[in-house]
């Protein structure tokens, strides 16, 4: 059996700002992949556009760096065509929750077997500091000089959409995040992993220090049960002095890729092209 080492995933030199939260996410992802012993050739990372979208270039694996907001549908198509691939979609909060919001909601509903990691820095960083759908209410940016409108709650939205795995991690806690990534990848179905990611250049409010003071781990809460949807929903509303991280909601339910007759046996890409098979369909038109 192949043994995967950290250097197998060594990619190009990142062009992120020094101290960027993305470094912690990249480290956690590589750690999870090594721990799960997934070789780079069995992994596909699909990304969108934004600083997070550059992530697959900084590791080494099958990569499709897609358009802004479109990582999820590309990932879904790739997974359906070859369900033997481990497929991870990555992007930022603007990419996933604004431009790609519709794709994200419906992907959760259909329960495709992919992992979606959203690097949530509450700001548009690649375009140098505009409001994001998760920017704090009233947050002043160059495009919202009178304050950002109320933010969306991605976790509550995911639970309402019956996403089968909903979790939040923190880029400042690599080991904990790597654990969540491992569980998201091994989960059968759509896994949303929202990751609190400090932006050192454009978000001077939601900093490492700001998050570190507030985050606490759900798995240390004795009474918390991620199978309980109402409890999960209530927990997803908590934001302010205390911010929970960990698995909010977890439910096993039918996976899209397992529900189709064409995918029941071997991967679609391995099935032969046989033009002569339509002969019998032609008789319907006589």
């Amino acid at each position, binding site marked *: 059996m192949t043994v995967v080492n950290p250097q197998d995933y060594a990619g*190009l030199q990142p062009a992120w700002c020094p101290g960027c939260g993305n470094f912690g996410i990249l480290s956690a992802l590589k750690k999870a992949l090594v721990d799960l012993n997934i*070789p*780079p*050739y*069995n992994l*596909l990372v*699909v990304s969108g*556009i934004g600083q997070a979208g*550059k992530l*697959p*270039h900084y590791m*080494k*694996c*099958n*990569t*499709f*760096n*897609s*358009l802004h907001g*479109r990582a999820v*549908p*590309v*990932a*879904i*198509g*790739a*997974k*359906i*065509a*070859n369900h*033997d*691939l481990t497929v991870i979609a990555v992007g930022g909060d603007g990419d996933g929750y604004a431009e790609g919001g*519709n*794709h994200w*909601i*419906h992907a959760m509903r259909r329960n495709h077997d992919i992992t979606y990691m959203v690097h949530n820095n509450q700001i548009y960083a690649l375009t140098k500091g505009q409001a994001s759908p998760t920017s704090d209410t009233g947050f002043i940016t160059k495009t919202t000089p009178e304050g950002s409108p109320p933010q969306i709650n991605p976790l509550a939205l995911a639970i309402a959409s019956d996403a089968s795995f909903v979790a939040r991690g923190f880029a400042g806690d690599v080991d904990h995040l790597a654990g969540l990534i491992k569980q998201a990848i091994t989960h059968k179905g759509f896994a949303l992993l929202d990751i609190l990611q400090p932006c050192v250049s454009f978000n001077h409010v939601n900093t490492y220090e700001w998050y570190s003071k507030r985050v606490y781990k759900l798995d240390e809460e004795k009474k918390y049960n991620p199978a309980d949807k109402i409890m999960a929903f209530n927990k997803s509303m908590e934001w302010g002095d205390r911010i929970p991280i960990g698995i909010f909601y977890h439910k096993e339910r039918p996976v899209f890729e397992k529900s*189709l*007759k*064409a*995918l029941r046996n071997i991967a*679609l*890409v391995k*099935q032969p*092209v*046989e*033009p*002569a*098979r*339509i*002969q019998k*369909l*032609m008789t319907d*038109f*006589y």
Partner: protein
Amino acid sequence: MALDLRIVVGGEAGQGVQTIGFILAKAFARLGCHVFADQDYESRIRGGHNFFRIRVRDSQVCAVSEVIDILVALNKESLTLHAPKLDGKGVAIADINMDPELVRQYTVLAVPLNDLAAEKAGNKLMANSVAIGAVMGMLGFDFEILAGVIKDFFESPAKVEGNVKAARAGYDYARQRYDRSPNYDLGSIMRIERMLLNGNESVALGAMAAGCKFLSAYPMTPSTPIIEYMAANAGDFATVVIQPEDEIAAIHMAIGAAYSGVRSMTVTSGGGFSLMVEAVGLSGMTETPVVIVEGQRAGPAIGLPTRTEQGDLLFAVNASHGEFPRAVFAPSAAEDCFWLTIKAFNMAEKYQIPVIILTDHYLATSYFTTEKFDLTGVYIDRGLPMAEDEMGKLSEYKRHRITPSGISPRALPMQSHALVVTDSDEHNEAGHIIEDAETRSRMVAKRLKKLDALRKDMALPHVYGPKTSAISLVGWGSSFGALHEAMGLLRQQGLSINLVHFTEIWPLPAQETADLLGVDRKIYVAENNATGQFARLLNSETGIKISGNILKYDGRPFTPQYIIERLKGMLP
């Protein structure tokens, strides 16, 4: 005299116009006739005015006629609207309770449609089958063939029994009451088995023959039946059909599936294609093959959602920002839909580009009799694969390697240990994001280089009639049938004219096309749009001077008569 029987069935939405029309068309096709049928309907579920036109000939036909021999008028409006177009010997069939004032004005065979249905079939709702029977009774059509078609159409034994009885009642009634000798000799028709199918069905069969294993599409008229047909057969044909949240997702899923290595497609209309255009560029940039079927309707915006137009040509040729190669096809009739769809998949994979198939509402929903497709002629070209000796060399595979043809050997994820890396950002040969000017220039040139060979793979326009003539009628796509018939009629009138028809539109082999059209003849381009898009494309690519445009943009298809009239108006 050559057979040319023209039937129109008219009524409200929900009255069964389509069912009557389809059963009649299928019965004539089964007898061995050449059949063409088109549909005209409003964007509503009930009410309004819909009609179904059928032409039955003993030679190939794919155009509508403005004259009617038999009119089935299911309501008053149908009689008022269509009866004035009845030929001198033409007859309308209407219910016996139809307004007597109207009945007096035209030649009407009044049939107790509802009463016969209630009396003979025990169900008033089967009046449509009485009407079908009446048409066939007037013509002395072989009732057993008709009964066979009804049987296949209704499937459930109870419905089959009732509808055959109803048809028989209408048939006998017309035989007794209609005493004129039939104008049409159906007795000499040879029994040849042909398919009767519409453009959508033909595209779907073509896609399945080509090995399309993934269709992601959002419902939109006129292309929705392609989704439904492929979905119905998906399980048996190892195909996945998915209806995503919108057209943007549809094309991205298709691109993702193609990246993993399956032939994939999306189908839509102009509005949906408008939403997809950014991803057309993604396909071009990442060199990921994808086939897009764009069933044009009368735009812009929602326009006339159930009507036809050839108004998206230049949009398809130019869709998406930036510069990259693509191919655009526009099939002429149902058979062409099949073969061009297969070719679209081959070109998409050979050149690793997006390929757009432009159908339109008219082509997509019209029925054509077609010889059975010879599947031994289906050729599958999956393009240039990664060489065997490259497999397993993890770090060496370059998805976008620069080659003399511009085509990079293609690997698939998990096919080997080679990693497949691609990017919508400008990238180097390895697929990683770059910014430098030199790499940018080399990669743009590499992608555009593919056009050289692609252009050679595009078939030249087909010339119908003599190779040279004083006048060339030029057309593209679905207007073929009307143009071809118009050209034939004009030649009978002594005009020196031929038809030069394009179905492989882009990239245009400019020099060869210019040579074919010559310099000293008059060229008239006919197209179903308001601005002469193809004429402009032809002129800009070849420098050929266009003598005149024949345009139609009322949402309705060309008729041969319309083309003849307009052309004659422009001739000196």
